[in-house]
């Protein structure tokens, strides 16, 4: 930290870094600044736990909060086993040449736009769901969950593959020497050693699932009521924010958006913190 010996260029580096760091703070401050009047009025509990009924003066975000958590959990339940299976195939089950191809495909999949997934699903999956359920528009939590699972799977797979591959070869060679098969090596040696990485991948995937907007906005139906079943239309926090333009800028509806924003920000920041802490914790132990 010898600031006084820096040249002009080095000051520019410093300014760029501090500026970027402050962006994270600035976003939080903006949300807080606009949401503060609402928070100060002591209605926080009301906001968090009442339902959304603007005509009755209720601006609670409870339904969206629950839906966001449900949708993220449900898509994780679908995505986690599939991703783990894929990472098994890529790290040890497939022939070496196929592994490379599969890994390249998964890499490219991370770049497929979410809006393209949702657009295709809207005309492919929604009619199927409509017929299966028999009533409603076909847009529901159950429609959005598998698409969201597909969106977050590549990230999780890459993370899993990375942590499975990191296991030291002194362990894996020992298994080979003992005559263990590939799957035995994977299940009894690599997986127990790599599980911190698996946990981190899940945290990362959950964060992405909570933060995704387009899938739930286009496929979940956006009804503000608390749905009674998985097959009913519902609205997530992110979709609720995305629909902000429909509101007047001075209305209560608009102000309640910031509480959604603050909640999402704090949640994803906490997930990130947990992710970093567990990375540090596990890397110190091994």
């Amino acid at each position, binding site marked *: *930290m010898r600031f006084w010996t820096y040249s002009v260029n*080095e000051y*520019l*580096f*410093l300014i*760029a*870094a*501090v500026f*970027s*760091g*402050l*962006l*994270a703070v600035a976003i939080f401050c*903006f*949300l807080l600044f*606009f949401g503060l009047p609402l928070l100060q009025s002591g209605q926080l509990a009301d906001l968090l736990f009442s339902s959304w009924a603007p005509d009755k003066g209720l601006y609670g975000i409870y339904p969206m909060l629950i839906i966001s958590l449900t949708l993220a959990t449900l898509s994780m339940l679908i995505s986690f086993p*599939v991703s*783990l*299976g*894929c990472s*098994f*195939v*890529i790290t040890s*089950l497939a022939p070496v040449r196929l592994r490379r191809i*599969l890994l390249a495909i998964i890499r*490219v999949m*991370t*770049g*497929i*736009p*979410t*809006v*393209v997934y*949702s*657009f*295709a699903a809207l*005309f*492919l999956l929604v009619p199927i769901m409509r017929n299966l359920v028999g009533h409603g528009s076909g847009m529901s939590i159950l429609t959005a969950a598998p698409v969201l699972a597909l969106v977050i*799977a590549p990230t999780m797979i890459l993370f899993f593959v990375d942590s499975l591959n990191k296991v030291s070869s002194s362990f894996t060679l020992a298994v080979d020497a003992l005559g263990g098969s590939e*799957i035995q090596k994977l299940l009894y040696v690599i997986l127990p050693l790599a599980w911190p990485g698996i946990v981190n991948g899940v945290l990362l995937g959950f*964060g992405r699932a*909570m*933060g*995704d*907007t*387009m899938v739930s*906005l*286009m496929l979940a139906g956006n009804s503000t009521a608390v749905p009674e079943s998985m097959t009913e239309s519902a609205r997530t926090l*992110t979709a609720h*924010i995305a629909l902000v*333009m429909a509101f007047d800028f001075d209305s209560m509806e608009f102000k309640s958006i*910031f509480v959604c*924003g603050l909640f*999402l*920000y704090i949640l*994803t*920041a906490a997930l*990130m*913190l947990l992710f*970093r802490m567990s990375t540090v914790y596990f890397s110190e132990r091994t």
Partner: protein
Amino acid sequence: MMEKLFEKSVVVLSWIAGLLLISSLLLLIAYLVYKGGSSLRLSLIFGDTAPIDALMLKRQVFDGLLPAIAGTLLLIIGSMLIAIPVGVAAGIYMAEYCRGTMKALLNLAFDILAGVPSIIVGLAGLLLTIFLNRKFQGQISTCLLISCFSLASLVLPYIIRTTQTALEAVDPIVRKTAPVLGASRLQNITMVLLPNSVSDIISGVILATGRCAEDTAVIMLTGAVATAGIPRSVFDQYEALPFYIYYISSQYTGPDELAQGFGAAIILLILCTGLLVSTLWIQRRLSTILLYR
């Protein structure tokens, strides 16, 4: 015996998982091509206007995708003009200068920024606009510049991280050679460390470009609209491919518009996956090209 069964079933289930993922990808692509393949003609982009006139900006394109494509390209260029210099500079600072508490704090800030959902970044951009609007008596509304700035803050942490890790991964022997020969710290960075890690940095930048191209949540709050034409200045509203796809999905009036939506989806898909494929290629080739030119 039980263990044998368990192992076998894990193998079978893993292969099923792999097949499931690959087949859903193939299904997606096949469905898009089946629905939108027929609309992939020059008129999809230029509408009824002659391509030359449209490209020379002589005439506006009304029923083609040109304004949306131009909007997306301008978004990419604008946000990268902001994000690359700031991100690379910050990455250099993080890797070469930053130590101790400062490093921990900045690391935490970048982690949080990377985790913030894009819709929140968009909301912050909208709030900034409202703030500026009140300050300057309604002269600033949502526009291309605000979107570029928001998208840049969305991808900054990626660029910083890739620059930082690329610089930190430079071989210690290479790192120490130039200073021993009398090079200053800055000379060492610009002449040795950066050229050595350029392929990693470029692929990080391309990944960030892909995120700019695909992101819908940010731009829908900060100035993308359904019809605007090609923007004349950075203070104009604009059209963009992802927003167009979203708009068509809820507002289409007939099969023609729908086919156009599928065409737009195919173009966006090709753009984004093309960017990713190029990173895979760069990581393999660029280091060789730079070493043996």
